C-alpha cells in the first residue's frame, strides 16, 4: 500500500440518542485513522458498531446526535462542512452497503433503471451511454447474464444477486470509501464468500477503502486488514487481522473462545464473563 495522508480521521466520536428516559450514549469516544485498507469493526449487538458507520455518513436516526473532536475525510472537515458539501461527499466519495438488499433497492424500478439512474446522476452521461455502462457494471460484479438481470425487478433477485447489484450501484460513482454494514449476514454461507470475493476485487481495482461492520469475528478476521473490536460503545482493541488469534483484550479473547468449532470436541463452550472494568 502506498504511504499517503490518511483517508479518514475519526477522533473522539460520540453518538448520543435522546430517549424518553434521557440521553443514551451509543458510541463513546471512538477514534481511528483509516488509510486505503479494509478495516473491520466487530462487536455484538448494542456495541455501537452500526451507529459508528451511520454517524460517518450522517445517517443517524432523527433523535441521534454525533459529535467528535475531529472528523476529516480526505482533508475535508466533516463537522464544519455545510449540508450541501456533506451530501456531495456522501453520494460520490463515500458509499454504504446495508445488510438486506431487499430494503435498499427501489422495488418499483427495474435493476437496470436504478443503475442507469446512478450513472446519470454521478457521471452525467447520455441515456445510451449510461445503459452501456450499466451493463458493463453488471458484468463487473460477475453477473452472467447482464441483459437478463438489467430488466429484472428487485424482488426477482436472490439475496446474493441483490447484494451484487447493490455493490454495482454503489461502485458507480467510484467512491473512495465504502461502508458495508453486515453486507453478507443475510446470505447463505457459500454465496457469502462469492460476494466477499467480488467486493475484494472491486476494492482492489478502484483502490478504495472499506469499513466492514460485522458481528462475525472469524469472517472479519479473514477478510479485512485491520480489526477494531467494539464493546459498549468503545473500541476495546485494535489489531492486525492476522494477529487476531493473539488478541490481548479479554473481551476479544472471550469472543474468539466462545465460538463453536467444526473440529471441536463438543465439550462445553467457555462463556464470556463481562467485566465491569471494560466499561471504563
Amino acid at each position, binding site marked *: 500500500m502506498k504511504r499517503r495522508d490518511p483517508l479518514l480521521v475519526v477522533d473522539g466520536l460520540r453518538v448520543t440518542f435522546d430517549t424518553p428516559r434521557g440521553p443514551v450514549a451509543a458510541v463513546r469516544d471512538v477514534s481511528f485513522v483509516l488509510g486505503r485498507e479494509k478495516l473491520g469493526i466487530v462487536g455484538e449487538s448494542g456495541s455501537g458498531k452500526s451507529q459508528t458507520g451511520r454517524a460517518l455518513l450522517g445517517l443517524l436516526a432523527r433523535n441521534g446526535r454525533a459529535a467528535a473532536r475531529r472528523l476529516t475525510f480526505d482533508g475535508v472537515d466533516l463537522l464544519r462542512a455545510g449540508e450541501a458539501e456533506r451530501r456531495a461527499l456522501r453520494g460520490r466519495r463515500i458509499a454504504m452497503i446495508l445488510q438486506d438488499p431487499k430494503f435498499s433497492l427501489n422495488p418499483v424500478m427495474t435493476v437496470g433503471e436504478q443503475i442507469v439512474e446512478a450513472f446519470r446522476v454521478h457521471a452525467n452521461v447520455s441515456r445510451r451511454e449510461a445503459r452501456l455502462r450499466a451493463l458493463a457494471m453488471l458484468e463487473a460484479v460477475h453477473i452472467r447474464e447482464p441483459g437478463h438481470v438489467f430488466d429484472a425487478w428487485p424482488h426477482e433477485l436472490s439475496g446474493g444477486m441483490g447484494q451484487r447489484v447493490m455493490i454495482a450501484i454503489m461502485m458507480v460513482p467510484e467512491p473512495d470509501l465504502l461502508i458495508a454494514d453486515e453486507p453478507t449476514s443475510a446470505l447463505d454461507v457459500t454465496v457469502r464468500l*462469492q460476494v466477499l*470475493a467480488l467486493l475484494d476485487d472491486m476494492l482492489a481495482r478502484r483502490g478504495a477503502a472499506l469499513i466492514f461492520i460485522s458481528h462475525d*469475528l472469524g469472517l472479519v478476521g479473514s477478510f479485512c486488514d485491520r480489526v477494531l473490536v467494539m464493546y459498549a460503545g468503545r473500541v476495546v482493541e485494535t489489531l492486525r487481522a492476522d494477529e487476531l488469534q493473539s488478541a490481548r483484550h479479554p473481551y476479544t479473547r472471550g469472543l474468539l473462545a466462545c465460538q463453536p468449532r467444526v473440529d471441536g470436541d463438543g465439550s462445553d463452550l467457555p*462463556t464470556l464473563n463481562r467485566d465491569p472494568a471494560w466499561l471504563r
Partner: protein
Amino acid sequence: MSRASAIEVAGLDVVFGRGRRAFRAVRDASFSVTAGGSFGLVGESGSGKTTVLRALAGLLPPAAGIRGEMRLGGDPLRPARSRALRRRLQMVFQDPYGSLHPRHTVDRILGEPARIHGLDSIDHRIVDALADVGLDASFRFRFPHQLSGGQRQRIAIARALIIEPAIVLLDEPTSALDVSVQAEILNLLQRLRREHALTFVLVSHDLAVVSHMCEALAVMRAGEIIEMVGVEALRAHALQHEYSRELLQAAQGYRSTPAGMAPAEQ
C-alpha cells in the same frame, strides 16, 4: 442409553402446491435418530431442512402433500395428531422475538401448556422450569419485550420442556443471537439433553454448531439428503460430497482466492 430409534423417517416427500406449480420441497428423505441422540440437518436456504422439521412437528399447512413414513418411537406421526402425541415432541424456533406471544407474561407462556396437558402443581413447575434454563423466579411476571434475545430463547426452551417431551426439535435456535449468547444457549441445551435424556433434531446452516451439538448429521441440498455421516467425519474434515466440502470450506472463513470466484451464482 437404549439404542432404539426415537425418530424414524423413511422416504419422506413434501410437495407444496398442485399441478404445474407443484414444488417438491423434500425428496425421498430418510434418516433415524437414536433415543437420547442428537441429529443435525445442515443446509442452506431452500434446502428443505426446515420443512423436514416442520413435517415432524406436524406444522406444515394442511394443503401440503406429505408422503413417506415418519415414526416416533414406533408410533406413526401423521399431520393430524393427538394432544398426547404432540406432548412427546416439542419445538424451539429460530426467532426468539417472534416465538413468544407479545401480550402474555412468562407466567402464562409457561403455565398454559402445563395446564392444557393436565399437569399438577403448576406454580412449582413454572419456577422449576425457569431455574432449569438458568433464570430466577423474578422473570416470571415479565413480558417478552422486557427480556433480551438470549433470555427469550431460554423462555422458549423452558416452554418446550415444561410438558416433559422426549424429543426436542431445534430450528436454528441460536442463529439470531450474538456469539457469546449462542455459547450460553448451546451449553444450556447440552446440559438439558443430559439431564432430561432428551433426543434432539437440530436444523442449522452452521456446521460448527452442528459439530458441537450433534452425533450424526445429514447435509441437505435442494430437498435431498446428499450425505449422512457421523460427527467424527465432520470434525476430521472428511466429508465426501463435493457440496458438503464446499460448505465446510465456507465455514472456515474467507480466503483471497476462493473457489466461489469463477462460477457466479445465477
